C-alpha cells in the first residue's frame, strides 16, 4: 500500500493542501469542495446511462407538452429515464413529474396481477387474465343483447346499445384510441368518451 492510498487522500488533508496551494492538490479548489473532496468510491461510480445495454427514444407520458425522453435499459429492465437533448420541444429538460417517470414505470406499488371482485363480494380475488378476458367479452355481449335498440321510442332507426360505456384516457396512444372507437362503433356503443370532455 503506497503512501497515497493511506491517509493522504483524506479530504481534510487534501483540502488543507489545496488551501495552502501545495503541489498535487486540486487546482483552483480553494473551497475544498471540488476535486479535493472526491473519494475513490466517487471515482469508481459510473452513470447508469453509460452502462445501459440500449437507449430507447420515448415521450413523456404526463402533460401534453410532449417532452422527449430517453429510456435506458439494462438486462431488460428500465434503469434510467432522462430528457432527450435532441428534442426541439424540450431540449433535454423534464419537470418533476417527467423526471420521476422511472419511478412510475418501475414502481413496486404497480399492480401487476388481475384483481376480481364478484358481485356483493367483500374482498378481491385472484383471476387468470385469459379467464378475465373471456368473462369481459361475455359481459359485453350479454349487456349488448339485453339493451340493443334498433329503433328508439320515436321510431327512429338508431341501431345501438346504451347499455355500456367507456371513459378515458387521454394518456392512451392514438392507435389505442383508434381501436376503442372502431370496436365500440362496430358494437353499436356510442358512449365512448375520454378526459378531453373533462
Amino acid at each position, binding site marked *: 500500500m503506497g503512501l497515497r492510498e493511506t491517509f493522504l487522500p483524506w479530504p481534510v488533508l487534501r483540502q488543507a493542501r489545496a488551501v495552502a496551494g501545495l503541489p498535487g492538490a486540486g487546482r483552483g479548489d480553494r473551497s475544498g469542495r471540488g476535486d479535493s473532496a472526491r473519494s475513490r468510491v466517487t471515482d469508481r461510480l459510473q452513470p447508469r446511462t453509460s452502462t445501459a445495454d440500449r437507449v430507447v427514444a420515448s415521450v413523456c407520458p404526463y402533460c401534453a407538452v410532449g417532452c422527449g425522453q430517453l429510456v435506458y435499459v439494462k438486462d431488460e429492465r428500465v434503469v434510467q429515464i432522462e430528457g432527450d437533448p435532441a428534442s426541439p420541444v424540450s431540449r433535454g429538460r423534464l419537470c418533476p*413529474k417527467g423526471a420521476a417517470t422511472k419511478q412510475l414505470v418501475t414502481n413496486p406499488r404497480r399492480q401487476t396481477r388481475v384483481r376480481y371482485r364478484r358481485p356483493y363480494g367483500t374482498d378481491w380475488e385472484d383471476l387468470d387474465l385469459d379467464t378475465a*378476458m373471456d368473462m369481459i367479452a361475455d359481459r359485453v355481449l350479454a349487456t349488448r343483447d339485453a339493451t340493443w335498440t334498433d329503433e328508439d321510442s320515436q321510431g327512429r332507426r338508431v341501431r345501438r346499445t346504451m347499455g355500456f360505456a367507456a371513459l378515458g384516457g387521454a394518456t392512451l*396512444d392514438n392507435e389505442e384510441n383508434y381501436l376503442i372507437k372502431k370496436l365500440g362503433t362496430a358494437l353499436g356503443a356510442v358512449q365512448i368518451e375520454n378526459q378531453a370532455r373533462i
Partner: protein
Amino acid sequence: MVQGSNMAECHPVGFQWVMAAKARGATLIHVDPRLTRTGALADLHVPLRAGTDIALLGGLINYVLCNGLEFREYVVAYTNAATIIGEQFRDTEDLDGLFSGWQDDKAGYATDSWQYEGTSVASSAGKRERGTRARHDGQGRSHERQATGRGHEHGSHGAALSDLSNIRRDETLRHPRCVFQLLKRHYSRYTPEMVARVCGIPVDVFLQLARMVTDNSTRDRTTAWAYAVGWTQHTVGVQYIRAASVLQLLLGNIGRPGGGILALRGHASIQGSTDIPTLYDLLPGYLPMPHPDAHGSLDEYVADDSADTGYWGNMRAYTVSLLKAYWGEAATADNDYCFDYLPRITGDHSTYQTVKAQLDGSCKGYFLNGENPAVGSANAKAQRLGMANLDWLVVRDFALIESATWWRDGPEVESGELRPETVGTEVFFLPAAAHTEKDGSFTNTQRMLQWHHAAVDPPGDARSDLWFWFHLGRRIRAKLAGSTAERDRPILDLTWDYPTSGEHAEPSAEAVLREINGRAADGTCLSSYQQLTDDGATACGCWIYCGAYADGVNQAARRKPHTEQNWVAPEWGWAWPANRRLLYNRASADPEGRPWSERKAYVWWDEGKGRWTGHDVPDFQPTKRPDHRPPPGARREDALSGIDPFIMQADGKGWLYVPAGLSDGPVPTHYEPQESPVPNLLYGQQHNPARQTSRRTVDPYQPSGDEPGSGVFPYALTTYRLTEHHTAGGMSRWLPYLSELQPEMFCEVSPELAREAGLEHLGWATVVTAREAIEARVLVTDRMVPVRVHDRIVHQVGVPYHWGGNGLTTGDSANELTHLSLDPNVHIQETKALSCDVRPGRRPRGADRIALVEEYRRRAGITAETGTAPRTAASPGGTA
C-alpha cells in the same frame, strides 16, 4: 398573455420558451385569481375574480374598437367583420342578456335569426330537409341540433354556407348591421369601469394591460394567448375561447408567428383522443356521428354537414375512406359503404349523461381506461353511486385507484351509504402497460405526433390497451362467428386482422398507424388527404392524420435533432395536417402575399416560382395566386379566393361572429357562473341561459347573487393542479418522489379570509358546498388576493384536485364539492368557478358529514329547483 392557465407550474418545460422570449424582450402578462410561479415571473400579474374572463376580454375588445386599434387591413380582408347580418337578429343589448331566438319551452336558442343576410347556414332549413323522416320547421331543427351537442361537430371547420355569392359585405365597416358595428355595440358596455366592478381589476391596471397588448399587436409584433382548463371548465367555456378569438382576430394575431390562441392541454395524448376521438359525437377527423333524422343515408349525411365551399366540401371523400378503413371489402358503393353500420346519436350522450344513465340503471357496464372519475370527474359522489349501480366495471390502470376500490373503502362506505355486501357491481381490475412497454404515438398540444418505442415487456398481467381492445374484439368476433343477426354484421365485417408478435401476441401499433394514415387501391401508403377519393378506392382511418405514414415511413418517429434543422423543426415528429406547424399561416402574409413585415415573415407568395413558400408548409393551395378570385359556382376549396386564409371555413374568413354552430350565442357575453356570490352587473340575465343543469338529488345547486340563501356560501372557489401531481393522481400519488414533494391536500386562502373565517396556517379547514364537505390543510398566503367587485369584497379559495383515499399520499377530493352544470356546446363541467363556505377544523366523520351538508342546504333554502331556471325571472328577453 397567459390566462386560464398556470403555465409555469402545469406545463413547466413548455414555459421555458416563454422565458426565452422574455429574455429576448417579450412582455409576459398573467391573468389569474392566484399569484403563482407564472405570475411571479410575469411583467404584470392581474388577479381577477374567478369566472369573469369574458368580462375582461370583452373590455379589451371594447378598448380596441373604441380606440381604433384593430389591424384594419387584416380585419377587412381576413375576417367576417364586413359581413352583413340579417335584419331579424337581436343582440343582448336589445334583450337584456339574451339573443334573439330564445325559446322558453325548449330552454335553448333557435339560431335562424343569427344568420348572414342573403345566405343560410348548415343548421337551418333548406337543403337539410332531406332526411328520412318528416322535417321540423327551421326553428325546431336548429334547436334540436344544438340539443344533441352537435355544435362540437364543427371541431375542425365552420358551418356550411348556402351561397357565397349572396353574402353582402361592406368593407368600409360602416353598415349598421355589419359584424364590425355589431361587435362595437355588443361590447360598448364592457368599459374599464365595468371591468373593474365585475372582475375586480382596477381601471389603471386594466388600461396598462390593454396598452401592453395592443402596443404589441402590429405588423411588426404579435401577441400570443395561452389558456388551459381555467377557460374550458365553465358553463360558458366555449365562449371564453371565442372571446379570445374575436380579440386576436381584431388584432391580427391569428395565423402569424408568435400569435395565436394556444390550448395548453394537460395529458400526453389528449389532443390525439380528440382527433381520433373517444368522444360520443365524433368519428375520426371531426366527422360527426350520424343522427337518425337527417342522416338516413350517406348522401343525406354528406348533404347535411358538408359545405359546398372550403375544404369541408371534401367531407364525402373523408367519410367513405373511413368506412373503407373500418369495413374494408364489405364496404361497397352498392351498400353505401356500410354507412348504415354506424350507430346513431340522438342527444347528449356525453360522460356526465352516462353517469345519470348509470344512476337510472340503463347503463350497466363501464370501461375505465386509465381514468379515475371517482376523483377526477365533477361530483365524485355521483360518479361512485353510478358505478355502484352497474352490473360490471372494468378498470385498467397502474394501481388500485379510487375508481376500482370505492365499493370497499370509498367515502360512502365510511358514511354508511354503501356496504360491500349490498353492492352488486362485478369489478375487473386489469393492470396496464406503461408507455415504456409499448409502441405508439402521442399527439401533443401542438398537434404533433411523436412515436414512443417499447423499451421492455410489461410486467405480469400488465398489457397495453392496444392488446386489450384488439383481443377483446377478437374474442367477441369469435363468439359471434356464424351469427346471422343483422346487428352482428358490423362486428363480423370489421377489418380486425392486425399482425401480432411476441409471447403476449401484442398487436402491431405501426400497422394501426398505417391504417389511420390510409392506403391507395394498390395498398401503398397515402401521403396527403388531398389524395382521398369518395369512390371507395382509398381507405383512411383519420383524414387529418393522412401523411403520418407517408412513403411507408413512420413520420411520427422522426427525430432529427433541433440543432440540425431550422427553427420550425419540421423533421421532428409529424404535425397534422400535412405536417403544418402553424395553422392558417396564409394570414402571416398580407393580401398581396407579402409578409406583413420582415420581422414576422413566415409564409409568402413567390411570384418567380408561382407558388407559396416560407419557413413552414403553407396552409393554402400551393399555387393559388393572392389575386385569384373564384369564378361563380366554384366549389370546395376552389370557391375560396387568394385572400381567404381560413380554408376550413365555408367563406374562408375568420369568424368574429358565428352565424351557426354554437348553442349559446353568436358573440361571447359575460354571464355569472352557475354558482356565484354576486349578481350579473352587465345584464338582468344571471347565468348562461343555455347551460345544462341536472335536476338530481345528488347534484343540488346553491343560490347565487342576491338570491336568498346565497350568503350561506359567500366565497368564490376555484380548483387547480400542482406541478408535482397529475390529474386524479393515478400516475403521481403512488410515486414516493412526487408524494414527498406534495404530501397533503390543502386549501389556499388569503390572510384576510383566514382572519374572517378563523383559519390557522397549517391547521385544518372544512370546505362546504351543497354537494359535500371536505377537509384540507390551510395554506394562508398573500398569493391569494381578495378582490373588490360590485359593492363588496369577494374572498377566493383555491383547492388542488389531485387527492383521493388511495396511494402514498391521501386526502379528500376537491371534486366532492363540484357539480354537474355544464357548458351547452361541449358538455364540460364548471369546476373553475363555484361558491363555497369555509370553516375551521376537520370535517365530521361518518353520518355526521352528511348531516353537516344537509344543515347547509337547509340554511340556504336549497330545493330541487334552486339554480336551475334557464332564464332569470326579471329578464324580459324571452319575449323576443
